[in-house]
């Protein structure tokens, strides 16, 4: 969906769905996940349909994701941090 224009120098290592992922420092969680090719962030609590970031500016609350064990965090507002644990909210 989105790609980088150029390579960055600084990166951080986050843990996404249990796997280590190197992402550019300074990105929001939403940006980092989108550019890594992840297009589904959660399943809607009402119908289970797949949802992903929409407005990218903190208004719509679509990009909710679990960060460090706390659910329903806005991924587009949270900057990535070293060893941050991120899990999608998809019910089994």
């Amino acid at each position: 969906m989105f790609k980088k224009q150029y390579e960055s120098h600084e990166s951080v290592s986050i843990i996404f769905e249990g796997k280590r992922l190197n992402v550019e420092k300074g990105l929001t969680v939403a940006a980092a996940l989108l550019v890594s090719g992840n297009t589904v962030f959660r399943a809607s609590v009402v119908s289970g349909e797949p949802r992903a970031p929409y407005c990218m500016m903190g208004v719509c609350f679509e990009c909710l994701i679990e960060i460090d064990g706390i659910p329903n965090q806005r991924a587009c507002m949270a900057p990535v941090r070293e060893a941050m644990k991120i899990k999608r909210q998809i019910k089994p």
Partner: protein
Amino acid sequence: MIKENAEVVVIGGGVIGVSLAYGMVKKGAKVILIDKVDNRLTASRGNFGLVWVQGKGKGMPRYVEWCIEATEKWPEFAENLETETGFDLNYEKTGGLEICLGEEEYQERINFIEGMSQSSKSGRYDCEMISRKELQSMLPKIKLGKEVSGASFCYHDGCVNPLNLLKAMNSSFQQKGGIYRPEQTVENIECSSNEFKIETGTHSFNAEKLVIAGGLMTTKLAKMVGMEVPVIPERGQILVTERTSRVFNYPTGEIRQNFDGSFMLGSSHEAVDYDTETSYEVLQKIAKRAIRILPNLKNLQLIRSWAALRVLTPDQKPVYLESDQCPGAYAITSHSGVSLASIHSSVLVEWIIEKKIPRGFTDFHPERFNVQEAI
């Protein structure tokens, strides 16, 4: 002026008015339900959805029995509505708790429940105190706060989705031929020997019977047909959180977890006239107490809050009154419109339509307020 006729005109589209109107069309009556314009003062959209007996009616035995009878009618009442409309009421009769923090609250609760039991002359009132240990075993999925000392548990209690209840009754009422006239402001009521003429800004309604269930407007409307029904507003504020997995399976008077997983938190009792604003102090007070009871709540996000005005009579118990001056006009008010919806739509309707006066009904007459004052 649009002229419309009916057997019964009900003024008030809140839980009480709609439950009466609904019950009446089910009996085959031709009913017009008039609803007001100002939607900010409606208790029917701002309540906790409890179908409750536990704390109701202390000192008025007739009312205690009335509440118990209502909860016994509720399961069938809910099932009928769901079948008629296809809407889920999420009604559950699990029994209800009132959780105590500290020894003093626990002791106070013991005394209160004793008083309630004494008020239940039939002895049917079924409520007991449970220890902290028992309470925790009833709630295995969530940790109780350190200060929780125990609770009272009442077997009659349950809860419902009050918004869906209102919607379902209104929908079924209209489906069964009831006429719903919203956005009305009642300006004048005339009563003659065999009919009532109700004038709003746009309509003139004629009816053989008139039922006033106007919430906080009841006093003013009832006066127009010779009845004195004092009601005052009392504000309550409520917090609603995001959804989470269901861990709290009993309703209480201040915390309940809705069917969809969101938590609703209350309660407050404020005499602030007609002010429906929320306040930082009260929201914080409610949040603090809820966290003392269930510490894990602190991580849940608060999404919504609201404030609504309870409709209270001087002793907080119902008034069911037929006008002496204008027979055929009735005033109905109660702050338990949800809990009593089952009995309002049946027994009260029989009183209004078929003149079947329930036993001990005079206890609900507002002259009791004058008696209390005289004393």
